[in-house]
């Protein structure tokens, strides 16, 4: 009887685990093969309630309550739906996906807009709700490994409305699963005006130790009911209410070396383990450049992945936000801050001289003709701003540096504890006597010498 019980338990465990861990086939394969794919309602046959659930996430709303940023209304929601800052200068509202005016030289038009990446069909757009919105979700964009991107292009329907196409083929639906790096990077690498412009990181085995170990984005950004955990990038405000830090996996004492572990109280992991960044570091929305295709883009200065040296600042995970500055708050004394690396980006755009506020821009006019002021005027009409006088100005933004993680090329003692080291201790609030101590080899000499002997 005892044997029989053990066999029964083993059989039960096997039948529970085998389909989930060993089978590569999606359990709904037979159903989809037989019935075809009809969008979210096919998914909902098994994944009930998921469509409605998704409508309440940042990926659908492009906004959320934001509690760690100053000078905003904490009862409102913020995100790419409505924010105005100089990496983008537009948002989903003023720079809604549309057909731009004809280019005077070529007579050609094209579709463009900030919400091009929104996983709906544009008829049910950012933040929409109800049955039509649920039905419009492009589940396969994030979940299929066989998505045909020729189908995800905007077009005008018979009513003249701009619709974003979707691949709802059975073939794509049969290849569903957890999102891979590609599913995420389709949108996230193209933000800010081109490939790897905004955040300036590539996630692959050459550039990130996690990718080299075969990890995908959602291994760290593990979704909970479609809510995706995010870090505390000072410029990435919208969040699903779940935060993510390195220590969640690595703990606060990740090193074998106690001296290194002693650093983690005041030095963020990223500071040593993300020594470089990349992407755009300056942009001018007041001067658009004509491209080969005769359309215009804002003039942009950019570097490749790992070509920009970050700046280091104390950061207590709250954010200073003024028309000319978005960046970390914190200091050495507050007991909450750590030193973090940031990519400093500076963007030039038009401000309202009468209020000092940054103005948003609709890209359609300048993209067609290069007339940036027409873009601001169009956005002002959309937002109902009538009283304005344009004045160009610069805004400085600190972008969090949270990818391009390295173990082998991490900063070592002498990279920081040297008179010309990467940390500017004076700017970080240390006095001369402390700096003298902090930049002396006395701190690490014996340790590195011992290591050097061992290596040889």
């Amino acid at each position, binding site marked *: 009887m005892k044997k029989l019980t053990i066999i029964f338990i083993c059989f039960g465990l096997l039948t529970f685990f085998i389909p989930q861990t060993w089978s590569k086939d999606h359990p709904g394969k037979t159903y989809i093969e037989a019935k075809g794919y009809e969008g979210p309602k096919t998914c909902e046959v098994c994944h009930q309630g998921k469509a409605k659930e998704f409508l309440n996430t940042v990926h659908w709303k492009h906004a959320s309550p934001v509690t760690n940023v100053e000078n905003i209304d904490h009862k409102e929601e913020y995100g790419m739906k409505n924010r105005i800052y100089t990496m983008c200068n537009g948002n989903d509202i003023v720079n809604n996906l549309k057909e731009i005016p004809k280019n005077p030289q070529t007579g050609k038009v094209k579709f*463009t*807009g*900030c919400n*091009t*990446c929104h996983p709906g069909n544009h008829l049910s757009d950012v933040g929409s709700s109800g049955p039509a919105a649920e039905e419009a979700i492009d589940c396969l964009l994030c979940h299929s490994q*066989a*998505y*045909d*991107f*020729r189908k995800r292009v905007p077009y005008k329907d018979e009513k003249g409305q701009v619709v974003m196409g979707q691949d709802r083929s059975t073939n794509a639906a049969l290849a569903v699963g957890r999102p891979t790096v*590609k599913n995420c990077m*389709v949108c996230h690498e*193209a*933000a*800010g*005006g*081109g*490939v*790897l*412009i905004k955040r300036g990181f590539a996630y*692959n085995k050459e550039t990130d130790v996690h990718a080299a170990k075969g990890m995908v984005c959602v291994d760290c950004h593990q979704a909970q009911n479609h809510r995706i955990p995010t870090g505390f990038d000072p410029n990435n405000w919208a969040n699903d209410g779940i935060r993510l830090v390195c220590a969640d996996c690595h703990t606060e004492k990740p090193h074998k070396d106690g001296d290194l572990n002693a650093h983690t109280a005041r030095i963020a992991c990223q500071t040593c383990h993300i020594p470089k960044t990349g992407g755009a570091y300056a942009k001018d929305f007041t001067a658009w450049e004509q*491209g*080969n*295709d005769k359309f215009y883009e804002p003039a942009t200065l950019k570097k490749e992945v790992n070509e920009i040296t970050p700046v280091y600042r104390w950061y207590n995970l709250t954010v200073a936000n003024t028309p000319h500055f978005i960046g970390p708050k914190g200091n050495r004394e507050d007991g909450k801050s750590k030193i973090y690396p940031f990519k400093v980006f500076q963007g030039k755009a038009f401000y309202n001289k009468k209020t000092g506020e940054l103005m948003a821009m609709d890209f359609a006019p300048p993209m067609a003709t290069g007339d940036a002021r027409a873009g601001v005027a169009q956005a002002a009409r959309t937002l109902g701003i009538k009283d304005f006088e344009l004045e160009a100005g610069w805004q400085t933004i600190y972008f969090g540096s949270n990818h391009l993680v390295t173990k082998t090329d991490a900063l070592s003692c002498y990279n920081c504890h040297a008179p010309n080291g990467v940390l500017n201790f004076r700017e970080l609030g240390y006095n001369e006597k402390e700096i003298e101590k902090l930049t002396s080899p006395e701190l690490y000499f014996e340790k590195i010498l011992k290591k050097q002997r061992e290596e040889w």
Partner: protein
Amino acid sequence: MNSPLKLTVLITLIIFLYAFQAAGAELKIIGIITKLELAPDGKSAIAVLKDNNGKEVTITVVDELTLDKFKDHRIVEGDEIRCKYEVIEGKNISRYFRKTAGC
């Protein structure tokens, strides 16, 4: 310059240019994809880029990330591309192949 000197300079220039290309000097083009052909084994592709002046360059793409973008049509004919390439054994091997567009 006398003729032998001219000839010497010319030969030196030719050798220099050949060596420069053979050494894999990086060249650049921004152009529209006019033709895109993926090899049957999926391990390489040929893309013809045409720049604003009508100059066409045939690029061989071998990096996995870009090939994957060809396979699922994230990059298609008609897209404008910023490309860096090296000439290796007569082939223009892509080192950087990115769409110019973003959002």
